[in-house]
């Protein structure tokens, strides 16, 4: 539902030139999200397709600095966490009585955190936009950080 809502929201805010591509990618993303509940490897492509809809909107409409990116980030994080929760619920393990509310509360918190972080990045970028090369530095640092995170995530424990 969140994936479909995200796709529809992007379709509504897209211009008439971009709406076809945005709707197409959004629906593909929503379908992949549904499939990712049972086939976990599809979660990455689902997120990529949903983000692709937003990328298409950015490329075709070319807004100066789109603050809706924070909303997209929140929606994508919530989609990913909901897929993870749905996979847990599909298993045989049940929570103790009284603990069932923790996961939705966590997902809501993570969504709000993602919204705030994306806002912060956009605010820094907006600040840097008027200072020329600062945006390049932010991008390079972010890419380096992403590579370090991927390397750490794939490293063996104790290695």
């Amino acid at each position, binding site marked *: 539902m969140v994936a479909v809502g995200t796709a529809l929201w992007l379709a509504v805010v897209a211009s008439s030139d971009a709406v076809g591509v945005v709707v197409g990618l959004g629906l593909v993303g929503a379908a992949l999200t549904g499939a990712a509940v049972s086939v*976990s490897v599809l*979660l*990455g492509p689902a997120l990529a397709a949903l983000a692709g809809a937003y990328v298409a909107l*950015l490329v075709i409409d070319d807004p100066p600095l789109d603050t809706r990116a924070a909303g997209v980030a929140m929606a994508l994080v919530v989609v990913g*966490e909901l897929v993870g929760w749905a*996979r847990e619920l599909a298993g045989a393990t049940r929570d103790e009585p009284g603990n069932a509310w923790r996961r939705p509360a966590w997902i809501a918190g*993570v969504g709000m955190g993602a919204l705030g*972080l994306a806002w912060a990045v956009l605010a820094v970028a907006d600040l840097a936009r008027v200072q020329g090369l600062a945006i390049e530095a932010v*991008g390079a640092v972010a890419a380096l950080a992403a590579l370090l995170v991927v390397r750490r995530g794939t490293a063996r424990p104790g290695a």
Partner: protein
Amino acid sequence: MTRAADARLGAYAVFAAAALVAALALRRTELAAIAAPFALLVALGVRARPPRLRAWFELDRERALEGDVLDATVTVRTDQAVDRVEVGLALPDGLELAEGRNPVALRLANGEERELPLRLRCVRWSSVEIGEVWLRARDHIGLVRFEGRIDRRRPLKIYPTAERLRSLVSPAHTQATTGSEVARLRGEGLEFADTRPFVPGDRVRTINWRATARRGALVVNERHPERNADVVVFLDSFAEARTSDEGTLEQAVRTAATVSRRYLERRDRVGLVAFGGILRWLEPGGGLVQQYRLVDALLETGVEFSYAWKDVDVIPARTLPPRALVVAVTPLLDERSIGALLDLCGRGHDLVVLEISPEPFLEPGSDRSDLAALRLWRLQRAELRARFERLGAAVATLDDDVTMEEALEGVRAYRRHARLVQR
């Protein structure tokens, strides 16, 4: 505990990297903003450390009967707080959960110990080991989980329930020691057999004074002594017909356990031959210890696939004593066991065949050729039963509609009839 990545970890990491590369390529800061929460989640998620978890398992007893409910407790203790730990007790075949939650997800505080009471129902006889506890822990983020198995296994024997039997098949021959079976021969006993003229050496108390008065000469009573018998339960474990829940072997073991227990209660000596891919045997013996030995041997019985041809020659001679009653419990599906039983008949053993009918486990097809095949198969089995009966071995068929008591009554009737013909 082993470390395993959740599917989200790879998806988030690749997505964040791709979004950042796209941000650089397209020169759009918005994509970096989208990537940032995912990158942060991955960075925090991979920092998770394995928790120190310990678990224990307790069971209220080591022996049970089919249908019994056991009380079990799984105890989990942690030295540090765990946001979510899944605890599961591996249930072996023959046990199912009657009450409680298994598996269950817990939230444990620092130094907390939690007991999980479970009630387990014994659904099928078996000899199992229970107590393998698996744990799966994760932190708040849940991108990395830690899995482990703690082995607290202990043996559990689930004995088959014995069916109620009022009477058994009397053996054709008895042994020398005292028992509950009225012997054919004459001697000291309770059951009246016949009268005969007095001979020197007869006890005065055996004189039948009424007959003596009528005949005018001393006449004494003869009696049948009470003796025991040797019974060998022949369990065919070469093949079985089964569905997912139940098979002929389960019923065969229950039948064998019932028969052996009832014969032991009559002070007979009972032995066992489990004739299958693996040959198991137990020499005839009596008493409570023998009863436990027999049941333990029955619990070990399983269908072991084998191409090896086996006949009665592989059975140790002492396991099949002469003049023993052989009670064969078989689905009559494998040529090797059928051949062995016919061989026993040919060698003069007193044989009774309790056939565990495989028909309840069949799902015949609906077309004409399938139905014709089923009719032919039934005819073949009827001919096989007739072949046993021609050799003097009674065959009783046990299925859902026929209880063991009814089947044994048929065997007793057949054996009374067969003796009359022999005379």
